[in-house]
């Protein structure tokens, strides 16, 4: 990074640290924070969409849809989600390979499960064995994101289902009295109004999603936990920047990062709550109305 970093062994104190913290592996470490943000940026809207679909399905008149929606949202209850994380990644991986296998190699006569092996034909390997490294990493990351979306989608579904039920009945009856169809009532009255009821639950889920991001490490993604362990471990003099075991300090850094992130989220969510409460028929909205006059 800096010119004086050419010979690390001659450095000391502040200069050593400024070189050490900007060397190649540290840049990768900093980039892995982007991985976390990417995960949040994709998984959050995706799980909201899953949750919305689940909540809508749970309210449907059509019985199978209702069973599907309720089954999905209650799936996560009572079982630690880490089990789901580990389970879904494998299931998705094998599921994709199995589907591709059935399509590409219809005349394959051997069983797919042979004892402890899961064997599909070469053409169905996902990603292909000769694919470049980034495809493998991207595929794993995609699976991880999808898993997060499934698990957190169930949480969101729970919250949104409750929120839809919390929209005051008279509002819905009024809309019906104006001659709106079921669909119109749903899209014009229920959905715009439910957010204020859903927000406490959703912000809770957001906090939990933030705190679930280090679990990426368990799914084999090179995230911040991976790099903190990697770089923090002791380095002997073979390396340019030898140092003792500093993993504790790296994890302390991650802890501070998460605390800060949580705090910022809290502040932002408080603002969003204020914005959404405006003009609502809730105690909060009433208080704001009184304050304004």
């Amino acid at each position: 990074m800096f010119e004086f970093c050419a010979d690390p062994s001659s450095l000391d104190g502040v200069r050593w640290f400024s070189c050490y913290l900007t060397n190649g592996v540290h840049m990768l470490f900093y980039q892995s924070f982007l991985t976390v943000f990417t995960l949040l940026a994709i998984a959050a809207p995706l799980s909201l969409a899953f949750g919305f679909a689940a909540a809508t399905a749970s309210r449907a008149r059509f019985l199978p849809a209702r069973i599907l929606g309720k089954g999905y949202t209650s799936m996560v209850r009572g079982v630690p989600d880490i089990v789901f994380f580990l389970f879904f990644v494998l299931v998705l991986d094998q599921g994709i390979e199995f589907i591709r296998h059935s399509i590409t190699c219809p005349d394959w006569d051997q069983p797919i499960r042979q004892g402890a092996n899961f064997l599909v034909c070469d053409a169905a390997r996902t990603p292909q064995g000769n694919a470049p490294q980034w495809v493998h990493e991207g595929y794993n990351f995609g699976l991880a994101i999808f898993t997060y979306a499934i698990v957190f989608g169930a949480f969101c579904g729970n919250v949104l289902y409750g929120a839809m039920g919390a929209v005051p009945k008279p509002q819905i009856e009024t809309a019906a009295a104006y001659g709106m169809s079921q669909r119109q009532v749903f899209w014009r009255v229920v959905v715009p109004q439910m957010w204020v009821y859903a927000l406490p639950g959703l912000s809770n889920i957001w906090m939990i999603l933030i705190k679930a991001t280090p679990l990426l490490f368990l799914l084999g993604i090179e995230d911040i936990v991976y790099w903190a362990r990697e770089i923090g471990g002791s380095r002997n003099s073979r390396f340019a920047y030898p140092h003792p075991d500093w993993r504790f300090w790296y994890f302390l850094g991650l802890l501070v990062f998460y605390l800060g992130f949580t705090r910022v989220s809290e502040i932002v969510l408080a603002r969003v709550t204020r914005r959404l409460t405006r003009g609502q028929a809730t105690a909060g909205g009433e208080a704001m109305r009184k304050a304004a006059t």
Partner: protein
Amino acid sequence: MTCAEAFQAYALRSLGIGERALPQGDITLCEQFVLIGSGMIWNVYFGVLALCFGFFFSVFLAISKASPRRLVRKPAEWFIFLFRGSPLFIQFFMAYELFVMLPRLGVEFEIFGLAIEAETRWLARAWLGALIVLFLNTSAYAAEIFYGALQAVPKGDTEAADAYGLTGWKKFRRITFPTTMRLAWPAYTNEAIFMFHATALVYFSSFPAFQQRGDALYYATYFADRTFNPFIPYPIVAIYFVMLTLVIITIFNLINNRLNRHLPQDTRRRLRIRPNLIR
């Protein structure tokens, strides 16, 4: 291997009793059930002990947080923020590194001329180290629940206590504390369920499974890796956890009934269980 044999060999495997080698080759369903069930011993151990110790500490924290004195309130607030604001996973990692680092730095306590070196070595083991982390974590979460309930104690209750001439400790013990518990109990039940779910993380964080003595998820992952078939071990873990959750709900329901025994049957606060969140 028959089921009875599997039970003999692996029922207490997680404590180091029984067959030394884990099942290999053709793994039967019985072996998976027994071994994963044996791992549940650790989950129950961590959950029960952390909750028992954590209960008292969290009440103490909640009272500190409600204190009007800054010097008492601030540390409690910070403690709660620290443990609620950061992922449990990172807390495990940090604690492990710290516990491994402590003896190396030569931190030796001397109490009555007795050097406690052995204790710091135990800290790096899951049975003590992870228990401490879980204890602190659940204390912070429960403290927030109890703090909320403490704030929600009806004004009439405390005023009635004043009118009866109850003050200080007596007022707290007879009036404030029971009402707090009554208000907090449904939320605390959820916290207890989370706590048991969080124990599944222990062997996935840095704490190594000494001689392959792990918890339920540790063994489930072992089987999933061996058989490359996630459809059997993980649902088994799920079944065990659902059963555990039902037991917790039953026990907490009994306590809830006892807390509300002075109320008529139909006005009692029902437990609403929403155990769906991770920490």
